[in-house]
C-alpha cells in the first residue's frame, strides 16, 4: 500500500514559510526572504509532482477508475458521533490536478516577485502573504470535507484581502481590498447557508460520503422544500452562490476588476490562476450532487457561467487598463468553465463537460498567469497600466513579446496551443446539451480573440510612444517564469485529460470533432484579423466603431454601470435611507420613549410627593375624609 501521508507537507511548508517570514522576515535581507519563500514553494511543487505521478500512475485503480484516497486525517471538532469536522488530505483526480496548478503557478510567481518587487517597502511581508495564500489555497483543494473547505475558503479570502491591499497607503488599493472582502463575504453567507442545509439534512460534512452514489445526499433529493425546488437543489444553489462570489460570476463580479489594484504577481496568482477558479473547483467537487440530486441548480450554474462569459468579454473589448482587460478576460474564461460544468452529465462521454471544464481550468492557469506576468513586465518597463500610453514595445521587450504572443494565441484558441484543445471540448459539450449556450460561446470565442489581439497590438505594435526613458527587458528572474509558462501554454493541451480527470474516474474516448473545431478556429481567426486591421497600425477605425455603437459602447465602457448600481444601493439606500433613519429612530423614539417613561414617573412622583407634606392638618384632613368615605362605602354596600 502506498502511503500518502507526506502530502500534508505540501500544505504545511507554505504555512511554515508564512510564520517564518511573518515573524522573522525583517531580520533577513529582503532577497533572502524571497529566496526562502521560492525554495519552499519549489519543494511543495516537487512533492506535488511526485504525488501526481504516484496517484495517476502507481496506485492501482479500482475497476479501472481512480479512487478517492484519504492521505491524512485528524478529527478536529466533534459535534456528535456522526457529525464531526476533520482536517485532512483528500486525493482524487481534481485535487491532485489542483495541487499541480497551484504549486506551479505559485512557484513561478514567487520567483518572478523576487525581481518584480525588488526595492519595494514590505518585501518580506509580501512573501509572507504569498505563502499564507498558497497555504490556504492548497488547504482548500485537499479538503476532505466541506467544513474544512469553508475554513480555507475564508482564509483564502483574507489573504486575498491582505494582498490586494498590500499598498496600504494607497486609498484605491485599500478600498478595493475591502470591496473584495465584503462582496465575497456576502457570497460566503450563501455558501454557509448551503453548508448548513446540506449538513442538517445529510448529517455529514464528508465529501466522500456526500458524493457517494448510495450516500444520503444523492439518495434524498426529492423532498420539496420551497418554491417547488428540493432541499438539495436549494442547498446547491446556495453553495454555488459562494462559488460565484469567489469566481467573480455575474452579479457578484464587481470586486475582481478593482482587485487589480494589488501588485501584479498577486493578480497572476490569485486573481487569474488559482483563487478565482475555486468556485469552479467547488462545483466540480460537489458535482455528483449537482448532476443527480439538483439538476435545476446545475442549470443555474450553466446560465450564470454563460452569461458572465459574454458580459465580461464585451466589457473587455472596451477597457484601456491592461490589467483590467485581463481581469475581464479571466471572468469570461471562468464563465466558460462554469458553463462547461453546467452542461455536463455524469459518467463516460456524458461527462465531457466536466472533463473539459477541468481541462480548461488547467490550461487557463498557464496562459492567464503568463499574460499577467507579461503585463507585469510591461508595466515594470513603462510605468503605466494604460495601453493608450504604450505602443511599439516589441523592440524593447523581445522575450515578453514572444511569450505574450504565445499566451494570446493560446487563449484565442488557435491550434496547437493549449487553449484550443480545452475550449474545443467545452464547445463540443455545449453543442450536445444546449444550443443557445453553444451559440453564445461561439460569439465569446470571437470576442476573446479580438480583445486579446487588441491588447497585443496596442502594446507591442501600433503607434510609437515617446517614453521618458527607454523601456528595457525585465531581468532573468522575471523572464524565466515567463518562458516556462509559455512552454506550459504550448504543451499543456496535449495532456490526455479524458484518461485522467473525468466525472466518474473512468477514462473515456474522445476525438477532436472537426465540425466543432474548424468553425471555432475560423471565428477566432476572424477576431484576430479584425483586431489586426484596427490596431496594428494607428487608425481611426476604433473610434469610428465606438461612435457607431454609441450608447452600447459607452455602457460597456462603464462596465454596464454595475459599480454605480451597487454604490447606489449601499451608499444611498442602506447608508442614507436605512441606517441614518434607524439611528435617528433609536435616539428619538426608542430612547425617547424610555426617557418619556422616566419623565412621566418624575411628574407623577412630583404630584404624589405633595401628599407627604409634613403638615399635621393636612394629614388629619385626609384621615377624616378617608374615614368618612369608607363609612359611606360600607353603609352603601350594607344596605344593598
Amino acid at each position, binding site marked *: 500500500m502506498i502511503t500518502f501521508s507526506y502530502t500534508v507537507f505540501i500544505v504545511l511548508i507554505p504555512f511554515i514559510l508564512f510564520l517564518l517570514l511573518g515573524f522573522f522576515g525583517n531580520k533577513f535581507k529582503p532577497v533572502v526572504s524571497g529566496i526562502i519563500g521560492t525554495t519552499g514553494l519549489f519543494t511543495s511543487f516537487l512533492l506535488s509532482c511526485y504525488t501526481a505521478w504516484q496517484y495517476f500512475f502507481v496506485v492501482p485503480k479500482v475497476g479501472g477508475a481512480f479512487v478517492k484516497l484519504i492521505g491524512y486525517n485528524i478529527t478536529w471538532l466533534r459535534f456528535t458521533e456522526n457529525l464531526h469536522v476533520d482536517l485532512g488530505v483528500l486525493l482524487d483526480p481534481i485535487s491532485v490536478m489542483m495541487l499541480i496548478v497551484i504549486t506551479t503557478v505559485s512557484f513561478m510567481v514567487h520567483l518572478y516577485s523576487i525581481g518584480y518587487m525588488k526595492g519595494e517597502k514590505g518585501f518580506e511581508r509580501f512573501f509572507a502573504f504569498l505563502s499564507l495564500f498558497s497555504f490556504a489555497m492548497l488547504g482548500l483543494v485537499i479538503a476532505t470535507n466541506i467544513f474544512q473547505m*469553508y475554513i480555507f475558503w475564508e482564509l483564502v479570502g483574507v489573504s486575498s484581502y491582505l494582498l490586494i491591499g498590500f499598498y496600504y497607503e494607497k486609498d484605491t488599493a485599500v478600498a478595493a481590498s475591502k470591496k473584495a472582502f465584503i462582496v465575497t463575504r456576502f457570497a460566503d453567507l450563501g455558501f454557509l*447557508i448551503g453548508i448548513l*442545509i446540506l*449538513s442538517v439534512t445529510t448529517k455529514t460534512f464528508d465529501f466522500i460520503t456526500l458524493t457517494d452514489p448510495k450516500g444520503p445526499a444523492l439518495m434524498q433529493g426529492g423532498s420539496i422544500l420551497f418554491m417547488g425546488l428540493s432541499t438539495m437543489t436549494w442547498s446547491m444553489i446556495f453553495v454555488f452562490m459562494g462559488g460565484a462570489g469567489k469566481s467573480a460570476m455575474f452579479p457578484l463580479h464587481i470586486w475582481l476588476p478593482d482587485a487589480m489594484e494589488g501588485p501584479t504577481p498577486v493578480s497572476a496568482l490569485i486573481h487569474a490562476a488559482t483563487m478565482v477558479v475555486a468556485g469552479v473547483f467547488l462545483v466540480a467537487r460537489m458535482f455528483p450532487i449537482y448532476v443527480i440530486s439538483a439538476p435545476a441548480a446545475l442549470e443555474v450554474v450553466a446560465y450564470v457561467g454563460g452569461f458572465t462569459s459574454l458580459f465580461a468579454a464585451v466589457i473587455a473589448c472596451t477597457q484601456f487598463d491592461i490589467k483590467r482587460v485581463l481581469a475581464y478576460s479571466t471572468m469570461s474564461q471562468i464563465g466558460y468553465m462554469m458553463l462547461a460544468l453546467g452542461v455536463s452529465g455524469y459518467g463516460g462521454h456524458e461527462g465531457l463537460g466536466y472533463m473539459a471544464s477541468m481541462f480548461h481550468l488547467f490550461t487557463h492557469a498557464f496562459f492567464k498567469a503568463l499574460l499577467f506576468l507579461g503585463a507585469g513586465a510591461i508595466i515594470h518597463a513603462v510605468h503605466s497600466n494604460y495601453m493608450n500610453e504604450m505602443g511599439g514595445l516589441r523592440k524593447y521587450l523581445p522575450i515578453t513579446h514572444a511569450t505574450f504572443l504565445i499566451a494570446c494565441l493560446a487563449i484565442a484558441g488557435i491550434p496547437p496551443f493549449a487553449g484550443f484543445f480545452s475550449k474545443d471540448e467545452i464547445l463540443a459539450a455545449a453543442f450536445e446539451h444546449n444550443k443557445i449556450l453553444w451559440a453564445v460561446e461561439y460569439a465569446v470565442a470571437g470576442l476573446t480573440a479580438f480583445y486579446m489581439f487588441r491588447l497585443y497590438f496596442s502594446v507591442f505594435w501600433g503607434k510609437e510612444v515617446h517614453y521618458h526613458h527607454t523601456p528595457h527587458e525585465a531581468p532573468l528572474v522575471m523572464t524565466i517564469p515567463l518562458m516556462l509558462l509559455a512552454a506550459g501554454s504550448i504543451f499543456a493541451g496535449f495532456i490526455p485529460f479524458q484518461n485522467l480527470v473525468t466525472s466518474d474516474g473512468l477514462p473515456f474516448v474522445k476525438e477532436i470533432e472537426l465540425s466543432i473545431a474548424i468553425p471555432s478556429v475560423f471565428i477566432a481567426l476572424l477576431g484576430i484579423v479584425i483586431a489586426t486591421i484596427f490596431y496594428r497600425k494607428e487608425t481611426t477605425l476604433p473610434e469610428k466603431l465606438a461612435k457607431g455603437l454609441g450608447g452600447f459602447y459607452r455602457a460597456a465602457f462603464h462596465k454596464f454601470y454595475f459599480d454605480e448600481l451597487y454604490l447606489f444601493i449601499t451608499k444611498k439606500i442602506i*447608508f442614507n435611507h436605512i441606517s441614518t433613519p434607524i439611528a435617528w429612530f433609536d435616539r428619538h423614539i426608542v430612547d425617547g420613549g424610555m426617557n418619556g417613561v422616566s419623565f412621566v414617573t418624575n411628574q407623577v412622583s412630583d404630584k404624589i410627593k405633595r401628599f407627604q407634606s409634613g403638615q399635621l392638618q393636612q394629614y388629619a384632613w385626609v384621615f377624616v375624609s378617608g374615614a368618612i368615605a369608607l363609612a359611606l362605602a360600607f353603609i352603601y354596600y350594607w344596605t344593598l
Partner: protein
Amino acid sequence: MLTGILILFPLLGSLVLLFGRDSGKIRRLALGISLVEFGLALYGLYLFVTTCHCQLQMEINWANSLGVTLRFGMDGISLLLVLLTTFLIPLIILSSFRHEYRNPYAFYALILLMETAFIGVFCAMNGIVFYVFWELALIPAWFICAVWGGNDRIRITFKFFIYTFVGSLAMLGALVYLYYRTPMPHSFDIRFLYGAILSYKEQVWIFWAFFLAFAIKIPVFPFHTWQPDTYTESPAGGTMLLSGIMLKMGIYGLIRFLLPICYGVLKDWGMVAMIMAVAGIIYASVIALRQNDMKRLVAWSSIAHVGLITAGIFTLTIKAMEGAVIQMISHGINIVGLFIILDIIERRMKTRKISELGGIANGAPWLAVSFMIILLGVVALPSTNGFIGEFLLLFGLFEYNYIIAGIAGLTIIFTAIYMLRMFQRAMLGEKNELTAAFTDLTMAETITLVPVIIMILWIGLFPGFFLQLAEPAIKDILMFTR
C-alpha cells in the same frame, strides 16, 4: 473551599488597596492580586473534573430558617466564565496603568470589588445570593463610570443605573415569588428553584420578569438604549468591564435561571424573545454602519453579537448552547481586545473619530497587525475564536428555524462591513498631520495585547477543550427543558 477563596480574595485585596496612597504601588498591587486570582482560577480548572457536574462546592448555613444556605459551586459554564473574568481583569488593570486617574486606590479597589461580584454571580447556586452579587456588581460599575467617565457621565450613568435597577427589581420579584412556590421547606437553593411547581400563567410572568432583568443587562433590543452611551462615556477600563464581563452575567442568567425554571413556556415565548434578539442583530448592525466614534461603533457591534448569542440560547439545541458559551468567552476576549486598541489610539490622538484618523499603520505596524487579528476574530474568520461560536450558533438556529437563521446570518456580512470600514479609515490610507507622529506599541501595550491574541487563536484552532468543559453542564440545563 476554593470557590470561597476565589470570591473573597479580590474583596480582601480591594480593602487593602484602600489604604494605599502611592499610585504606582497601588497599581502594581492590584495587578498582583488579580494575577494571583487568575492563578487560583487555573488551579480550579486543574481540580475540575470534566465529566461531573456542579463541583468545588461550598455550603454555609447562614439563615437556615429562610432557606438561605449559601451554596457556591461551579459547573463547566461557571468555570469558563470565572476563567474569563480572572483572565480579563489583569489585562484591564494593566491597560489602565497608562491613565493617571484621580484617587487610583478607589479605582482599582472598585475593579477588584467588581471581580468579587462577578465571581459570586457565576458561582452562586442560590437565587438570592445570585441576586445579591448581581446588585453588588452594579455599584462599583456605576461609580467607575460616574466618577472617571466622560463629560456627560452623570446623566448617562443615572440612566444606566435606573435601567438595570428596574430589571433587577423584576428579577427580585420573580425570585421571591418562586420561593413560595418551591416545595416545603421553602428555599432559594437553585435545586429547589428548579423544582418549583408553577402553572403555565405563572411561568409566563416569571419568564418575562427574568427576561427583563437579563435582557437589560445583555442588552437585548429594545432595552439597549443605555448601552451605547454608557460604553462611550465610561473610562476605558469601565467599558471593558461592562462589555467584557458584566453583560455575560445576563446571558449566564438566561442559561442558569430562565431556561430550567420557565421550561414550560419556552416553546411559545422563547420564540418572541428570539425574534427580539434577531431584530436587534440587524437593527444594531445597521446603526453601527454609520458610526463615526469608534467606541460607539464597537458598542453597537456588541449589541448585534450578543443578540446572536441570546437567539441561540432559545433554540435549546446543544450546538447553539455550546456556541453560546464559546461565544460568550470569545466575545469577552475580542471586545476587550478592541477596547484596548481603541484606548491606545485615543490616548495618543486624543480623538476616537474615524474621520480624523487614517494611515496609522504607517507608523505602527505592530498595532495594525494586532488590530487586524482581533478584528478577524470579531468578523468570525475561521481559525479565530469568533468563528467557532458563530458557526455553532448559526447551526443551532438553522436546525430550529431556517428563516431566523438566515436573517441572523446577515451579521457576518454586516460585521465585516463596519469593522473593515473602521480599520480602513483609521489604520490604512495616507497619514494626516494628526497621525503622522503615531508611535508603535510600547512594551506594556504589547504585553496586554499578546494574551488576547493568543486566546483568539487558541480557541479558534483548538476549541475542543473549551467545548468539552461546557458540554456536561449544557446537557444538564437542557435536561430540565425537556
